[in-house]
């Protein structure tokens, strides 16, 4: 760790060697009480206007006497005067080494270096330009707050602090050991979170060495190492109220500077099927919605495979009228039903991915072309059959009821369809057992992912909120269940 030198020229030379080529590096030489000094900052990260108004205000309010015998000369004396005997609102902790200096400057602070002093004064004059607090595009809700996390870590921490106004909320910040030295925060309620779990998370994140850290999800391979995984025992949210609710359940939240996505751990499978709106509506309606979501999720995974299995291997189970329609549609197409189903599923994925990545100006055109190609031209040309497209479309829509499970649902849908198409009913059963094994094999910090919370008062069916509030839920109650 390179300590600051007492020579101003050496410090400025070291900074010029590192940042001299950067256009945003700003170093202004000044003189205070006949002692040479320099203000260093990054332009557009620290606000020069704030800095000068701060300094002028402090200087006019509290100007030390100009008596010759009391006039300080050395950098150390000037530092002591400004730090301890003036009205300058400097930070409590001075800068003593180069790493800390760079860290403070890249956080938008301005640093005053003095010739003859090994410490620097730090001023919080951040003027960072960033995205404001807006409603997130995902996680739609009808009632409740419209705020979402922003990209700046400090803003996000303030949003949480505004909601949890107790002394139990702890937010520890640290820098990740990565090329970008990105800052992250571990948030938890100290009276509810498990101390061992917090310690384990803290240690794991300290030891993690991501190449870059652009989002909280980059930490998952260190937190839960596995060779392969379909489901991860974590969830994400961009809504401060959701994050605050999770904190009150004893969960741990990780926020990363530059990303609005908060990582929540540990998470349960059943939590993918509830949302903020659940508790704002009646228990009956929210229970109905949850049952619908569970049904949609399993429909999106199993419907194509079951359809292929029944139509190809067990046609006697399909009612005769429906069977005739399917048979007639399949007779007119060149591909077998199994291949058709796979093709349509893959085509829908391509369209979805294209819709997500393309510029918004082209979005309407591509959607129209995709609908015409698949919906009309393919059927009209006899390449694909209507029942197959109908089934694939229903599954494609069903999966968006639980967007947090989109990735595993897509892969499982393909796997179940392949298994059912290749091995028939036995393959379908094996695929179902595989899904069950994938869900039951996961646990995070002793909390099983497929916990019995499904059958609790806030699982598939939700009880009245007043009843739920009598026995507050903590995630660590599920440990080992």
């Amino acid at each position, binding site marked *: 760790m390179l300590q600051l030198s007492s020579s101003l020229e050496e410090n400025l030379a070291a900074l010029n060697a590192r940042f001299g080529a950067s256009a945003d590096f700003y170093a202004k030489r000044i003189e205070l009480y006949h002692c040479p000094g320099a203000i260093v900052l990054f332009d557009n990260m620290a606000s020069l206007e704030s800095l000068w108004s701060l300094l002028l205000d402090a200087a006019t309010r509290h100007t030390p006497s100009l008596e010759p015998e009391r006039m300080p000369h050395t950098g150390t004396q000037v530092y002591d005067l400004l730090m301890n005997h003036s009205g300058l609102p400097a930070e409590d902790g001075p800068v003593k080494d180069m790493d800390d200096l760079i860290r403070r400057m890249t956080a938008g602070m301005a640093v005053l270096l003095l010739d003859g002093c090994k410490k620097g004064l730090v001023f919080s004059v951040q003027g960072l330009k960033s995205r404001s607090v807006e409603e997130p595009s995902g996680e739609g809700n009808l009632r409740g707050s419209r705020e979402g996390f922003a990209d700046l870590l400090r803003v996000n921490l303030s949003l949480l602090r505004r909601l949890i106004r107790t002394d139990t909320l702890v937010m520890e910040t640290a820098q990740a050991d990565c090329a970008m030295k990105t800052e992250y925060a571990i948030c938890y309620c100290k009276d509810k979170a498990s101390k061992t779990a917090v310690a384990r998370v803290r240690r794991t994140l300290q030891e993690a060495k991501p190449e870059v850290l652009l989002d909280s999800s980059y930490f998952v391979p260190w937190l839960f190492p596995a060779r392969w995984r379909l489901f991860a025992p974590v969830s994400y949210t961009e809504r401060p109220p959701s994050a605050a609710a999770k904190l009150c359940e004893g969960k741990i939240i990780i926020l990363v500077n530059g990303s609005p996505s908060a990582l929540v751990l540990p998470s349960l499978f059943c939590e993918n099927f509830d949302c903020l709106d659940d508790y704002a509506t009646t228990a009956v309606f929210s229970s109905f919605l949850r049952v619908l979501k569970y049904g949609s999720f399993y429909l999106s995974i199993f419907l194509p495979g079951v359809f292929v299995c029944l139509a190809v*291997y*067990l046609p*006697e*189970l399909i*009612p005769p009228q429906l069977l005739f329609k399917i048979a007639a549609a399949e007779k007119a197409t060149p591909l077998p039903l199994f291949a058709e189903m796979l093709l349509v599923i893959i085509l829908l994925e391509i369209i979805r991915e294209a819709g997500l990545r393309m510029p918004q100006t082209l979005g309407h055109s591509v959607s129209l072309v995709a609908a015409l190609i698949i919906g009309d031209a393919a059927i009209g040309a006899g390449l694909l059959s209507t029942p197959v497209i109908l089934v694939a479309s229903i599954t494609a829509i069903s999966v968006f009821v639980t967007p947090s499970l989109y990735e595993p649902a897509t892969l499982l849908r393909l796997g179940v369809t392949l298994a059912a198409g290749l*091995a*028939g*009913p*036995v*393959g*379908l*059963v*094996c695929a*179902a*057992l595989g899904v*069950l*094994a994938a869900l*039951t*094999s996961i646990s995070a910090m002793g909390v*099983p992912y*497929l916990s*019995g919370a499904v059958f609790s008062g806030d699982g598939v069916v939700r009880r009245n909120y007043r009843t739920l509030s009598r026995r507050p839920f903590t995630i660590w109650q599920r440990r080992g269940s």
Partner: protein
Amino acid sequence: MQQKQTFSAQTLTLSVAAAELGRAIFGAGQTGSVRAVLLSNVLAAAAFVLLAALASVNASRLNRPGFAGKCICAVFLLWYLFELVRTAAMLQQACWEQFASMAFIGLLPFFLWAGWSLGCELYDRMASVLGWLVVLGIVFCVLGLAGQLQWQVLVTGETAHSFVLPDATFYPEYFSFPLLCMSKNNAKISKKPIVWLPIIAAVISSGYALGLALLFGAPQAYPGYELLRAWSFGGISRFDAAFLLLWLAAAIFRFGFIVRAVRLLCERLAEGPVNAEAAR
């Protein structure tokens, strides 16, 4: 973290239930009277409960290291291997007869590998979900058959039959508590669920026999799966395939469980004398 090396009662219960359901579904038919079948099941269950209770009470003696313990381990290993073959044969019979599929044979290496690799804790967690699905399936079956049962069969007189030994099968799970459910650290685990296993098997067997008799009368020579085929609920009448698939899942689970149990028993047999001394 060390993987758990013991099973829970739920796993053994599901395994026994799957085996007994398979025996009932693919049974050859019922030639004796219903009352005789029910009585023989009760007697057999009582006897097995006593034996299972004895085995559980003397768990520490059965589980001790040394030559005697290894002999007991070897006997159970052979018994489980026999059950493995029997379960595989039942699965193949179901796949071929009901679904005209040889996929079980084709996937057999995969099932063996998966059963060998999956941990005991995973089996326990899967059993708690799969068990509930099986119970729901049974309830659904009963609802679909309720309207067709001829309850007068219960009070109709029967011709006298000579005494026949109970046709009850006993499974190694009844006596596996010391070997598969007990470890050094949880000697105080409850033994009650294990003792109930023979009763669960008896309930399944008796219920199935009663259902066949109430539907088709007794005696009758219909195979067991005809009871499933009789299911109807409004316009839907082919639930037998769905229930068979559910049973298939439970039976594959049992297959995997037996493979894992075989692995555990092999590891126990392979434990050297040093470990035996440490255990003492």
